[in-house]
């Protein structure tokens, strides 16, 4: 003990710092990109390109590139397909395969039209509304395609990557389309300093508009350039939380089949966002097609079935009332095209049903059904 006491600076300061850094380096090599954690090990995020330009993005920061490509190809009649990870996730992906957006894009060539996709993991309808406002400002959208995931109505708010100054400007000038949504309140406020797009990051929120902001950004950039571990911190955070979720699930017996209860406030906020989408499309003369996304049929659905039926009926009624098209794709993808979600964490054998992502064949069936729908609208 006296030895430990004599060298206490080493044991209580230097050694923890060294061991802490060592742990970080070890952890860094075991993690997966944050955006892909929820997809499981056998599903990848796929973003098709045409030429040098993407036709499907997962981050609104790339809207300009998306628009640039659309212009280069002749600014044709365009369908905007919004969605969640079902749209970009391909299960059991093999080289050369593509997702529904890519397939529909190819099919639409015969009609001299095209489709562009924007999707985020667990995207809620408020985020889809924000994306619609953002993209339609830059791209002459003629059709909008939106899936209504019952699951995503449990989500709320706008992710940080969406809270750009461009969206703030749009929200300020088109307040009617976001009214009543608390997630948009900060964006519609008159007093907000505009920050360059590349600086939109919650990481520096605490020192925004202070002298320290410059120093901190400089040091952060240097640290990221010098230390790979520092640069990967966001992914480490994502993986860390995922581990906590897995621990929670295991301890509480939660799995993919567990019934998800609807959260009243979030449900209402998302339905309000849906009504704003309907209003916006009517106002801008954009044709809206809403669809109930595919669900696997070999297991009971993880929702309260009565409420789920009610939800589908209610939305169908709303669509009929406002002239939007409604498609029910719930049974479009047969069971063999769905897989099990293998836990994204290294070393874990926690295998669960995947209710969200399917294989390329599933994407093909969805793309074909939607293509035929658009043909029927000609």
């Amino acid at each position: 003990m006296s030895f430990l006491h004599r060298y206490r600076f080493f044991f209580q300061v230097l050694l923890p710092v060294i061991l802490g850094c060592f742990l970080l380096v070890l952890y860094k090599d075991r993690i997966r990109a944050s955006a892909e954690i929820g997809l499981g090990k056998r599903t990848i995020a796929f973003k098709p390109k045409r030429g040098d330009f993407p036709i499907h993005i997962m981050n609104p920061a790339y809207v300009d590139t998306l628009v640039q490509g659309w212009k280069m190809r002749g600014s044709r009649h365009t369908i905007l397909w919004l969605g969640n990870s079902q749209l970009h996730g391909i299960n059991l992906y093999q080289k050369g395969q593509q997702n529904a957006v890519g397939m529909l894009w190819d099919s639409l060539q015969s009609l001299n039209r095209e489709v562009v996709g924007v999707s985020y993991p667990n995207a809620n309808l408020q985020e889809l509304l924000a994306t619609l406002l953002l993209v339609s400002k830059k791209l002459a959208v003629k059709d909008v395609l939106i899936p209504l995931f019952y699951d995503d109505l449990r989500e709320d708010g706008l992710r940080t990557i969406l809270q750009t100054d461009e969206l703030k400007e749009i929200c300020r000038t088109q307040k009617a389309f976001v009214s009543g949504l608390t997630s948009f309140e900060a964006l519609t406020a008159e007093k907000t300093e505009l920050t360059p797009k590349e600086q939109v990051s919650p990481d520096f929120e605490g020192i925004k508009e202070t002298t320290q902001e410059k120093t901190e950004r400089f040091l952060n950039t240097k640290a990221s350039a010098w230390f790979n571990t520092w640069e990967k911190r966001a992914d480490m955070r994502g993986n860390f939380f995922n581990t906590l979720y897995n621990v929670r699930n295991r301890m509480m017996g939660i799995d993919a089949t567990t019934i998800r209860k609807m959260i009243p406030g979030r449900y209402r906020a998302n339905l309000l966002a849906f009504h704003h989408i309907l209003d916006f499309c009517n106002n801008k003369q954009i044709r809206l097609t809403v669809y109930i996304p595919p669900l696997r049929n070999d297991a009971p659905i993880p929702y309260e079935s009565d409420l789920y039926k009610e939800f589908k009926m209610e939305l169908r009624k709303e669509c009929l009332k406002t002239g939007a098209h409604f498609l029910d794709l719930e049974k479009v993808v047969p069971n063999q095209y769905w897989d099990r979600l293998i836990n994204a964490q290294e070393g874990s054998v926690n295998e669960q049903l995947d209710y969200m992502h399917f294989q390329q064949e599933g994407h093909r069936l969805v793309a074909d059904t939607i293509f035929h729908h658009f043909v029927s609208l000609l």
Partner: protein
Amino acid sequence: MIFNSITFLIFLPLVVLLYWFLPGKYRSWMLCLMSLVFYGFWKPVYILLLLFAALLDFFVSIEIDRHENPIKRKRWLILSVGLNLAILFYFKYLIFFTDNLEGILNMLGLHVSILPSLKIILPIGISFYTFETISYTVDVYRRHIKPERNFIRYLTFLVYFPHLIAGPILRAAEILPQLAGRQAFKVDFLVEGFRRVLIGLFLKVVLADNIAPLVDQGFALPTNDVSAVDVWTLSFLFGFQIYFDFCAYSHIAIGSAKMMGIHFPENFNFPYLAVSPKAFWKRWHITLSNWIRDYLYLPLTGQKMLHSKPEAISEIRHSYTIKGYMALFLTWAIMGFWHGASWTFVIWGLYHAILVTMHRLSLHFFKNINHQFRNFMGWCISLPLLMLGWIPFRTTNLHDLGHYASKLVHPSQYTWLGLRENCYLITFLLLVLMLLTYCWIEVVKPILNKWVVGSILDTIALSVAVALVVIFLRPISQFIYFQF
């Protein structure tokens, strides 16, 4: 400069190194300069305001000391306190008062605009350093301390960076002798300081900053979408957030000062384990509670301090008269108002006054009950009531506060849930973790420390904390108490 940043993690070791390598006579100069640089990282222009406050009280305190005539001494004191409060009023309360006045005049049919739309930026830390300068002048006036004749030393006391922005609220009698002394280096300063800074960063960046989004989302919901269970959950969740956040700041402040051999008083001591509302305020923001007691409550009740150390009053004679209770309620209203220019803060203060009063009045009913059982029951009753107090503190307007309060009394509001399931789970886990941490520190650790295993566990815990702090370190938010 914000503590939870890379800038600070470079700044602190640099200052510590300079401090120990410089000859003693230059240390105050260096600390003073570096503290001003630290403050300037926010908005450099407000350094002038700090310097003005320091100059004012430095010279006024000398004048107070110079005069023997009580009337002249009092005049100087009034000048100092008045100017300090006037500055605080301008920056913190002017807009609030004019808004309220305009509101009253509008109700009377007089549609006038008293002031053009002002954009006043609240200088960071102003409430803290104003209290420190006031206590310094009052202590000189009460002849508890002699005025400091070395301006740089006085300025260093006031602007010393660890405590400058959010406390602990220091007394001149505690710090000036330490700044004047020639401290010899001890490795324990670095070891203890490092540990405190690391614990503080862990509490802030790993716990408080990750609880914050849950709290923000909860309070951003329309009040109709929140049930009574949610109000309780949010009160606990915010209670934990603000505790981790503020306790983190105090840890980092105490640890940073410790690295330079300067001892700060403790500011927290497991406040949520308090067995009564009164005990809570002996464990929560201790330096503010002591300040309010010594410079506000005691003068209002007519009691006097013998000297300026916080332990001067060991036993306050509580006054159970109307005047005593008026003093109590006035003190708490001011305490609330100190936190922010909003009626919700005043309500928060008065809520605590009611809790303290109820506790005082109920004491003699339970004096014959078993001590341990009484403490346990006291904790069970006090904790939810104290947590509930965070609702007015966090709510931004009276309208929402009214809605939350009405939810609590309607049985139907206890039958549904409006938050994500994780909120309830995390709240429960935090409560359990807090109790386990207390048991670990108070019971298990002292036993383990007798063997090598204690040191090994300690090193492992510190290593994990280092890794987690690096992963989560982002100046994503300021410390909550910066706004006060």
